[in-house]
């Protein structure tokens, strides 16, 4: 659920990031387009200015030529022809420049051509007139001027020039207008994007705030409810306990023993209720994450002496003796002393309550696991013990033992162990239990010597009892009894679970050597339980024997199980199968990996005399599968195989959780080079040459391999 919400939240975030990026892109695009437009407008404006100034200069040159020409005509003085010739010379260059501008100026290009044509015409007229005068044909020259033809040309030239000026001006204005309006558009777009983003952001903020408020509100409501519940219950309890104590005083004074005892019961019921309320408050505080760890250095021996003195009266009440066993090396600890004291008191007071005329020992030792040091506190009692099927439920809130004399007496809250386990886990450790009915129980607090915030609870595993356990998961109590009786005389412990859920919980707790599972149980799908057992990394290696009323031999779902029996079961065969798996355990099954069926057969025959379960695989890939499902105690491995060879198999096996430590004995006919030898030295327990095997050599080698790998 949590990952789902976080994924949804990240989807939300992605959405906002996308929108933001889009807005940014639009903004940048708009700025770029405008800038480009502005640049072009600027370029054009400069060109226009240049065109206008050129054209004015051009006009000036033409009129200079004209006035020089007229002065010559009027006076006949050749000196007046000088500006005329000068103008005629420069006109040529100016016209070339005009042509250039006109070429990339569509709006005025056409007019430039006309201007040029008119200018040429004008020049031709002037030249013709000047030449005539020069040759003495004054009349013709004057006639030319008098006719006003050249004036007409001059006027048309002027008009055209004005037109060009106007056109360039208009074009400039149009461009400016365009730039301005597109800038306006871009600004508008940017503003809209900003507003949109702002609205989205505000809405999201609102939503987050609303969610947080709702969560805070819910938490506050819960806290307020718990506080007021506690208050409301305490007030009448005060009267109940107070009056019963008062009446006890009266009864004691009048020597009414019966009344006194009854009143004591009322008082103890009241106190039990009080304890319950306190535990619920504490539990809810832990669950709400309101309990903080205050770690500090303290002396473990001092703490133990202190708690022993505190529980001595309770222990003595039931006639129990109380001892401390302090192993050497137990000294200082850096953790939350208040919480550890509470856990120890809880375990010790439980032991005192459940044990009658027995012995309670508080044992402490220091255990080093890899890089970390743990302190292990065992509270060992000689009480009635706890049945295997109840062990699994022991740490569940409100679970109370069914079979103990304490139940119904109103002495436990059903929360003590749940709180203890949660507190020890907060401190990076765990609370564990081992128990045997009729012998006693051992509750263990395993805590890191030094508390490190954020460390997961990684306590060293409980020491397994030497007796192998068989777990019977069956709703048929007749089977429970049957299996129990079967193993009366054997060193095998039988635990029973009445349904699949309980079975899985107990399997996790007890780590049995073998499980029998009824696949057809009321209210549970045995096949599903089988699948869960076999897909749980902690449980998948435990062999499962299926029991069923129906013949399920042909059912493909049964392939996960090691054996299948149909009810009514053949007792001898079942006990044989259970014993074989239970006594053999993990260490005494082997997987032979070789591509040659003959070699496999030969190796199998040699190992069979051990009475082990022998699995076979024809190549590395099959072997990896078998290792995952069968968890062999030892692998006898050939190196040269098709597809996945022995080397690759080893590398891949060592990379799996289950196969990291599986002992592997390499039996090969290959001549190994030093690099290969080095590699095998790291990954395999031993390497033997195929040719050298004689008689029982293989068995001896396999046993030696197991010994080495222990």
């Amino acid at each position: 659920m949590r990952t789902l919400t976080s994924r949804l939240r990240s989807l939300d975030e992605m959405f906002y990031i996308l929108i933001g990026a889009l807005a940014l892109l639009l903004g940048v695009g708009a700025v770029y387009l405008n800038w480009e437009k502005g640049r072009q407008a600027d370029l054009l404006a400069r060109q226009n200015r240049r065109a206008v100034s050129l054209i004015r200069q051009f006009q000036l040159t033409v009129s200079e030529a004209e006035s020089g020409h007229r002065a010559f005509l009027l006076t006949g003085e050749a000196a007046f022809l000088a500006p005329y010739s000068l103008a005629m010379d420069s006109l040529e260059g100016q016209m070339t420049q005009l042509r250039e501008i006109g070429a990339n100026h569509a709006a005025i290009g056409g007019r430039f051509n006309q201007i040029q044509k008119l200018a040429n015409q004008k020049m031709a007229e002037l030249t013709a007139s000047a030449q005539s005068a020069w040759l003495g044909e004054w009349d013709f020259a004057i006639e030319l001027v008098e006719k006003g033809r050249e004036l007409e040309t001059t006027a048309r030239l002027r008009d055209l020039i004005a037109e060009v000026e106007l056109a360039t001006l208009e074009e400039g204005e149009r461009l400016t207008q365009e730039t301005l309006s597109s800038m306006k558009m871009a600004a508008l777009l940017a503003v809209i994007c900003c507003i949109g983003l702002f609205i989205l952001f505000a809405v999201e903020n609102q939503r987050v705030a609303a969610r947080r408020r709702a969560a805070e509100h819910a938490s506050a409501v819960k806290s307020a409810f718990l506080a007021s519940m506690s208050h409301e219950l305490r007030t009448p309890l005060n009267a109940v306990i107070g009056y019963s104590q008062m009446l006890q005083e009266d009864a004691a004074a009048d020597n009414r023993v019966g009344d006194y005892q009854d009143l004591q019961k009322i008082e103890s019921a009241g106190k039990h209720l009080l304890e319950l309320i306190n535990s619920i408050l504490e539990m809810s505080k832990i669950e709400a994450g309101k309990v903080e760890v205050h770690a500090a250095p303290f002396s473990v021996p001092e703490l133990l002496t202190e708690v022993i003195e505190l529980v001595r009266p309770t222990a003595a009440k039931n006639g129990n003796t109380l001892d401390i066993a302090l192993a050497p090396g137990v000294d200082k600890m850096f953790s939350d002393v208040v919480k550890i004291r509470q856990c120890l008191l809880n375990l010790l007071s439980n032991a005192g309550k459940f044990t009658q005329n027995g012995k309670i020992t508080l044992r402490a030792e220091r255990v080093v696991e890899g890089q970390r040091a743990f302190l292990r506190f065992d509270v060992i009692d000689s009480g009635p013990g706890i049945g295997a099927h109840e062990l699994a439920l022991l740490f569940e809130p409100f679970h109370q033992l069914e079979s103990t004399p304490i139940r119904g007496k109103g002495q436990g809250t059903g929360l003590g162990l749940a709180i203890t386990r949660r507190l020890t886990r907060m401190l990076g450790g765990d609370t564990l239990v081992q128990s045997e009915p009729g012998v006693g129980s051992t509750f263990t607090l395993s805590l890191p010597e030094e508390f490190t915030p954020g460390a997961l609870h990684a306590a060293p595993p409980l020491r397994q009892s030497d007796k192998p356990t068989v777990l019977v998961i069956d709703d048929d109590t007749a089977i429970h009894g049957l299996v129990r009786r079967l193993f009366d005389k054997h060193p095998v412990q039988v635990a029973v679970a009445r349904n699949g859920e309980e079975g899985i919980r107990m399997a996790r707790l007890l780590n049995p050597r073998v499980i029998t599972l009824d696949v057809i149980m009321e209210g549970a799908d045995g096949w599903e339980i089988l699948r869960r057992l076999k897909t749980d990394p902690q449980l998948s290696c435990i062999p499962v024997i299926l029991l069923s009323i129906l013949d399920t031999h042909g059912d493909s779902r049964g392939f996960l199980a090691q054996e299948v029996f149909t009810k009514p079961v053949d007792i001898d065969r079942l006990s044989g199968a259970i014993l074989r798996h239970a006594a053999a355990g993990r260490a005494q099954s082997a997987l032979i990996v070789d591509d040659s069926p003959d070699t496999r057969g030969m190796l199998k025959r040699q190992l069979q005399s051990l009475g082990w379960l022998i699995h076979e695989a024809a190549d590395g890939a099959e072997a990896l599968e078998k290792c995952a499902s069968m968890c062999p105690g030892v692998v006898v491995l050939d190196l040269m195989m098709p597809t996945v060879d022995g080397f690759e198999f080893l590398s891949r096996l060592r990379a799996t959780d289950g196969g990291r430590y599986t002992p592997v004995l390499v039996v090969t006919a290959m001549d190994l080079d030093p690099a290969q030898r080095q590699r095998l030295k790291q990954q395999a327990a031993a390497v033997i040459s195929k040719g050298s095997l004689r008689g029982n050599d293989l068995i001896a080698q396999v046993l030696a391999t197991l010994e080495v790998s222990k």
Partner: protein
Amino acid sequence: VITILLVEDNEMNRDMLLRRLQRKGFQVLTALDGEQAIQMTQQHRPALVLMDMSLPVVDGWEATRRLKADPATKNIPIIALTAHALPLERDRALEAGCVAFETKPIDFPKLLAVMESVQK
């Protein structure tokens, strides 16, 4: 004879504690709310006040503050008795001016010990 004032609005709890204290030889006056508590304290000057905190009319915290503000009553020790069990409540009561804090259900022998130590 030591006179103490018991302020408690819950009838059963008042009756129970009254009788248990009387058995121990105290002279016990009772008040049902904070206002009465102030009035009775000013009038009778008890050696000690046992104050419930959740009270009608004027609550225990306010009553304590007012008694502590009055020079005539400020030296009378007040012990808070409350069914509020959270650690926060202790601070609240001590802040108001209480000298000690006991949660309900009352551990009677402990209360007697606290009363004794407070009077000294």
